[in-house]
């Protein structure tokens, strides 16, 4: 049992599980840092996963599938941002509504395009080797680049200003709305890439395959104090426990697997109980458009 945890296969499994969570968390962190509540991560994952399957199946290329996933994530983000920033509708409601629409919408598209209730036709992937998966490397690059981009680039400074002090942006002649669109579209593309990983890692789209990952990712964003790299790391911890649970189930060790799978959630609660929730400060204008 212990050996199997320190094996390369286990490590690979952790990474494979972590990628969709991490992309969603990084995407959510960027969107929220610009001041828009991102409860629509679930929708971006689902539509991203479906688009990756549709494009991947039609073209036979998983790379184009990733592009399709990112594009779908950006489209969901565009609808979300239009409602939030132009209509000024409530951002929490937008998120809940988009998640609902995505759950039905992807199944509607499955029916319409493939006349299937739950599964898309098979999609080519990147093989079993995790190292050959460009999405993993993309996630690693994003986790390193995003903190730098937020801290040092013009895009990052404006994104953070839009989230914390939109007035200061207005004062220097930059539109907070436009800034939020740029940030939100990047966030949508990231979450869409997470959706693509869901599809490509199992070789096809399955209805409701995001299975609440968007919500967990958002929780990790908040837990990580809205810092994308820390959010991705928190997701790695979630993935570690998920892989550990699968290992337990396979090796038939006496801990009930239903309880083992609760470890990351119980741990998150324990962290909150012990450390309290004061570690992170939300962007000042979050949700106040």
């Amino acid at each position, binding site marked *: 049992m212990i050996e199997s945890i320190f094996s390369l296969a286990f490590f690979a499994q952790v990474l494979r599980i972590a990628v969709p969570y991490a992309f969603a968390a990084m995407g959510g962190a960027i969107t929220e840092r610009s001041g828009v*509540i991102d409860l629509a991560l679930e929708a971006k994952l689902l539509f991203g996963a479906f688009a990756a399957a549709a494009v991947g199946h039609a073209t036979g290329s998983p790379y184009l599938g990733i592009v399709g996933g990112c594009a779908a994530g950006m489209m969901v983000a565009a609808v979300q941002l239009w*409602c939030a920033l132009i*209509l*000024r*509708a*409530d951002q*929490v*409601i*937008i998120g*809940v*509504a*988009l*998640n*609902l*629409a*995505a*759950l*039905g*919408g992807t*199944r*509607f598209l*499955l*029916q*319409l395009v493939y006349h299937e209730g739950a599964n898309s036709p098979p999609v080519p992937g990147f093989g079993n080797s995790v190292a050959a998966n460009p999405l993993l490397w993309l996630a690693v690059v994003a986790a390193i680049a995003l903190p730098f981009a937020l801290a040092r680039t013009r895009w990052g400074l404006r994104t953070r200003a839009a989230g914390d002090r939109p007035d200061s942006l207005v004062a220097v002649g930059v539109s907070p709305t436009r800034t939020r669109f740029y940030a939100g579209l990047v966030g949508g593309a990231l979450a869409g890439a997470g959706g693509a990983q869901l599809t490509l890692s199992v070789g096809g789209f399955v209805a409701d395959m995001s299975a*609440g990952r968007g*919500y*967990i990712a*958002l*929780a990790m964003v*908040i*837990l990580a104090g809205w810092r994308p790299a820390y959010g991705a790391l928190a997701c790695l911890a979630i993935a570690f426990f998920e892989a550990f649970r699968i290992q337990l189930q396979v090796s038939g060790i006496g801990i*009930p697997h*239903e*309880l083992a*799978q*609760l470890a990351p*959630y*119980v741990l*998150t*609660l324990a962290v*909150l*109980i012990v450390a*309290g*929730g*004061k570690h992170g400060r939300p962007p000042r204008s*979050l*949700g*106040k458009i």
Partner: protein
Amino acid sequence: MNLAWIAPLGSARRELKAAAIALLVSVAIGSVLMMLAGRAPGHVWWLMITRTFGDEYLVGQLLYKATALALTGVAVAVALDAGMFNIGAEGQLTAGVLGCAVVGAALPASTPAVIAVPACLLAAAGAGGAVGAAIGALRVYREANEVITSIMFNAVVAGLALWAGNEWLFQGGTTRGPAIAEGAQLPQLGFGGSAVNASLVLAVMVIAGVWWLRSRSTWGHAWLAVGRDPATAHATGFDVAHVRILAMTASGAIAGLAASNFVLGHKHAFEEGLGRGTGFLGVAAALLGRQHPVGIGVAALVLGFLSSGGIAVSDTVPKETTEVLMGVVVLSIAGAAAWVRTHDVAPEGGRA
């Protein structure tokens, strides 16, 4: 979290205007979906309405769905009133289902309904309320964001329920627990053998009760004051921490009561996944009903209609069409309310 938008639009006329715009937008988007599926929208809408309301069974199913959604919707709204976003109605409902079914099955078979039904309801509300109280206490004493803790509790409760089921409850290879005592079973209301049951009365009572609390009692005044502006509420002498914990407990208890619809009224046992999705859809009902108990009742009926209507027309368009519409309806009401708020600034007669 900024919850300033829970303030109502200012007048019933503007609320209705927003609802009318949202209805038009939803029908338009629904029509596009139907055209995508290759059908004439007018025909499908006509079929959806005539078939749903022409079929006793489908009306019953509509009411069955609406019963649970009204309860989880009101639950979410109570927390929103007090300034907290309870996305954990899902987990509180699951806790309620488990508590309700376990107590119901533990009662002796001869227990009269007068004792059995209240005992089961108390168990459902207690289990849901306990989860809600934990979320409220974490928010108050550890400043833990209730959105994270709610999501975590959803996962934890679902896992514990599955574990309890596998370990003790599920009968020989099924995912169904032991049946509850006969006295605890709520009567069906007929409707062509559909699942609608006496829990509908419970839902109406809860709507009326919360309406009264919210608009007529000092209790409701306290939780609305805390929701609007905790600092002012504190300065005015309200015990903000106390109010928050109690509101979240009440929210959880109401969400737990929705178990009555599934366990006491329909399945008469604990089942894996029973009521799943009702908590999340309850968030939609609360937002669609604009936090007003009566509005939530109407919203629950609308969502119930979409659910039944989808089945009614499943031979012409995929039944997923109406699932998309649930999201579309919620999105359009949010958009329309925002639009009316910014564009309708001078209401007739000078009333705001």
